[in-house]
């Protein structure tokens, strides 16, 4: 009985993850510049992957420990990867969207082409 309930909860979690993947893909197409696309896609795909892994771990309870290991690894590395991507996009000179109100890195040492000294 408990196993059946966990199975259905796992299927629902897998569908939630798939819907978040689709939302990330739509945001990747619809958003105007690379920074908006990044904030639409990285967080949703991270949540979708974590949800699918947890759903599979609930459907197959012997795999739950390794599923939790994968979830912890994703939660540790996805923000690092997103931050590195944003830095790389800014430093390689991708222009901001024309509707951007404020650029807090303007004139700072992280501005593109300006060295640290």
């Amino acid at each position, binding site marked *: 009985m408990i196993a059946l309930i966990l199975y259905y909860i796992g*299927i629902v979690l*897998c*569908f939630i*993850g*798939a*819907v978040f*993947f*689709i939302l*990330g*893909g*739509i945001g*990747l*197409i619809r958003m105007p510049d*690379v920074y908006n*696309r*990044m904030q639409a*896609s*990285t967080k949703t*795909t*991270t949540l*979708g*992957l974590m949800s*699918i*892994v947890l759903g*599979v771990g609930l*459907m*197959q309870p*012997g*795999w739950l420990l*390794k*599923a939790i*290991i*994968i979830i912890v*690894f*994703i939660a540790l*590395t996805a923000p*690092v*990867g997103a931050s*590195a*991507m944003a*830095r*790389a*996009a800014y*430093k*390689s000179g*991708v222009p901001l969207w024309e509707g951007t109100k404020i650029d807090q890195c303007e004139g700072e040492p992280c501005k593109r082409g300006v060295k640290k000294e």
Partner: protein
Amino acid sequence: MMDILFFTLISLLAIATFLALYRLIRGPSAADRMVALDAITNVTAGLLILIAFLSGRFIYVDVTLVFAILSFVGLIVVARYLEGGL
């Protein structure tokens, strides 16, 4: 019943892959392609663990973990290359 459910699930993941593939092909800059590739690797990891469940083999979960580690390392390398530090 369960077959239709998992077929729908994998079809949703395929649709998400194609949505990201559009941005990977048509991205105006290299950073757009990098972001799209990161989304595709995440979708692929989810697909791998679904395949692990459907085939019932525990070894594919390890494959998913190694794939996640390697995609992270590759993403860091590409980001360092784009910002000129490599």
